[in-house]
């Protein structure tokens, strides 16, 4: 990805909101072995 040769330096301080997931990760559904009884 090319963003241009002239680049200015910054230090970005994230807010608490920035570091939270937008949508909380959901736990993966438990996998049943294929031959397990229903």
């Amino acid at each position, binding site marked *: *990805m090319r*963003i241009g040769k002239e680049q200015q*330096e*910054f230090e*970005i301080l*994230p807010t608490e909101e*920035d*570091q939270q997931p937008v*949508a909380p990760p959901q736990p993966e559904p438990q996998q049943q072995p294929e031959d397990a009884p229903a």
Partner: protein
Amino acid sequence: MSDSDAPELVVGAWRGYRIWRMAGDRLTGWWYTGYVWAPECSEAYCHAKRWTRRGRRARHHGLPAPQPGCRCGLYALQEPWDFAGYLPSSLYGVTDESEVVIGVVAGWGRAFRGRHGWRTRYARPVALYRAPHLDGEQVERIARRYGCQVVEGRSDLLSLADQRA
């Protein structure tokens, strides 16, 4: 370092657009496909090398990414492109769109901003665009893993990126 050399301080993560390659339920870099993005926060490292009398050595040993005059960092573009068409080859270099998902990313920490976008030390995906040609279930699985949103349309992607330009 004098005050005039000090980086400008900014509060609040930047948001921009980028693409990832999808590998199972993971996101990898566009060029650096061996780089797998972490679910909560990815951190950039500089792997640039230079030749010295003792052989190849790290170019920025012990220094945090990104570094000036280098290509390291986690990248994003600040302006959207026509997501329905080919990727802008002038910015991405190639136009192979297989397994590619477009999204919004938030970046913070040490940062460099150029004319077309920025590169930061830390970043995380905010939203993924479920384009019609993609495997929708795969995009959903990835979004669950990374705790980011799935959007169906270009306008949703734009509004999410604009929340913190």
